């Protein structure tokens, strides 16, 4: 028995078994999205020999669905603009300048990182209402930006700090202003940090369900994850269409993951692993 556990074959079979349990439900999702609803109801376990693309056409013709996708793109993209622009600025200052009160600011940022967003939802709700930012995409974008900024600043300041000081001096010697120095010299060098922050922030925002549930009321402003719940009510037991909807909603991330899996893993575990 101990011999078996020690062998490479055993550990390889463990990994293969794990791969099957991960991929089987995903395969089921893809396969079922290509079968007609009646076909699926007759037998859930058959291969889609003749892909039934009509499901996807039906999802697409449901005008709301495309609109949900567009809203998610706008909200995720908009949040990223704020997170990257503000995060690079603050990360640069905290990583490369030395001034009085620096530790105080770092402490402020780190404390904000520990506050769970779910539990301050009520005051945020009332505050957004008062600011006329309730049921608005800009309001949601600002809340997301605020939620991801502390970690973004923390990660980026680490990247800025790691660059050699001589770079700044050389750039200044050549007559570059501070702004030019950031844009032309330092930004290209912290690109890996920008990639990590982008993934760290974008995936949870794209996937988020809770904040749009609370802050967005108008059906035409809902995001894709919110939209799916409406969609599941509308098309109950039209299995093929439901699977196609799930496929379309997850496809953007699946494709990106297949291309950038290493960066995804680094980005999504960035908050947990030191260095």
């Amino acid at each position, binding site marked *: 028995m101990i011999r078996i556990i020690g062998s490479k074959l055993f550990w*390889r079979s*463990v*990994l293969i078994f794990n791969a099957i349990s991960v991929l089987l439900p995903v395969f089921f999702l893809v396969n079922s999205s290509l079968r007609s609803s009646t076909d699926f109801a007759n037998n859930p376990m058959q291969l889609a020999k003749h892909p039934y693309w009509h499901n996807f056409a039906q999802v697409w013709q449901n005008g709301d669905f495309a609109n949900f996708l567009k809203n998610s793109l706008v909200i995720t993209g908009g949040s990223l603009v704020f997170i990257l622009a503000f995060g690079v600025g603050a990360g640069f200052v905290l990583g490369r300048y030395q001034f009085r009160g620096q530790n105080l600011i770092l402490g402020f940022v780190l404390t904000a990182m520990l506050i769970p967003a779910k539990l301050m939802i009520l005051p945020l709700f009332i505050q957004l209402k008062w600011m006329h930012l309730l049921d608005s995409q800009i309001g949601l974008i600002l809340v997301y930006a*605020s939620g991801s900024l502390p970690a973004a600043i923390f990660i980026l300041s680490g990247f800025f700090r790691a660059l050699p000081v001589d770079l700044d001096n050389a750039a200044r010697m050549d007559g570059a202003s501070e702004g030019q120095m950031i844009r032309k010299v330092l930004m290209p060098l912290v690109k890996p940090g920008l990639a990590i922050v982008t993934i760290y922030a974008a*995936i949870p925002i*794209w996937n988020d*369900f809770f904040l749009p549930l609370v802050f967005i009321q108008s059906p035409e402003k809902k995001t894709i994850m919110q939209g*799916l719940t409406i969609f599941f009510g509308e098309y109950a037991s039209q299995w093929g269409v439901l699977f196609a909807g799930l496929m379309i909603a997850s496809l953007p991330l699946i494709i990106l993951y297949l291309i950038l899996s290493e960066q995804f893993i680094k980005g999504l575990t960035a908050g947990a692993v030191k260095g």
Partner: protein
Amino acid sequence: MAKQGLKRQQNRMALMLLTPALATILIFTTIPAFTTLSYAFFHWDGFQRGSFAGFENFSRLFHFPFREQFLIALRHNLLVFVGIFLIQTSLGIFLAYALFKIRRGQRFHRTVAFFPVIFSLVIVGYTWQIILNPFFGPVNYIFHSLHLDTFARSWLGETSTALPTLVFINLWRWVGFPTIIFLAGLNAISTDYVEAARIDGASEGQIFRKILFPLLAPSMTIVTILTFIGAFEWFDLPYVLGGSSGGPAGATDTLALMFYRLSFGSVDSIANQIGIGSALGVLIFLIVGVGATLGAKWLRGREVEA
């Protein structure tokens, strides 16, 4: 003179670059976090704040009917934490060790193991809901064709199986995360220790128990704390699969769901109870904050230097 000019330029720059980020965090995170505490001490009529209430909201939370709901939800959160912690952590270490052992194909298996983490819980929840559908789902189809009819049941619809099923779905979606954290921990351990032990004739099992596992303590701290926080703020999966009242019949109710119902109303009662909701929010925050801090302190104490 030039140096002073630079300093002035830097000060202006620092102010210009820090203000937008810090103002955003202040307005949308710090201020609401502080006001959330005050909400619990006032009477509320809908979203309108009334008179000062002292600890009345807290005391109402501990009386009928909220007390019963609170205790049931708290019990579920505790069960979920213990369940997720035991299964997910041990499976995570097991898979991480397998990845650590296998060099050829490691990249592929690591990518696959982490894959479900990128999925939204809404998509994961709905996909599993159909897979486990009592009439049309493949799971029961298989059980029926194997004549194992006792296993062909409504896994998400029965009060006795709903919560364990949610924990299982959570496991499918999340186990890749601790796996990657533990793998990073294993990779950070100096090979010298392992080599030395091997020369001394230690078996692979001994090397794991006596060297690798103790040195994994920092990863264990991170995984435990994140699991604890996640378990006590568990919302998305139970909401998607059981609705805001934690169906079936409250079998999957959690503290976060109860907090949501009190804050924004529910199907059963349209009227919200912001005061009691905030009191519950403060309690959850205390449980998570105190639990995570004490836990981290205790776990860090047992870490050894690698």
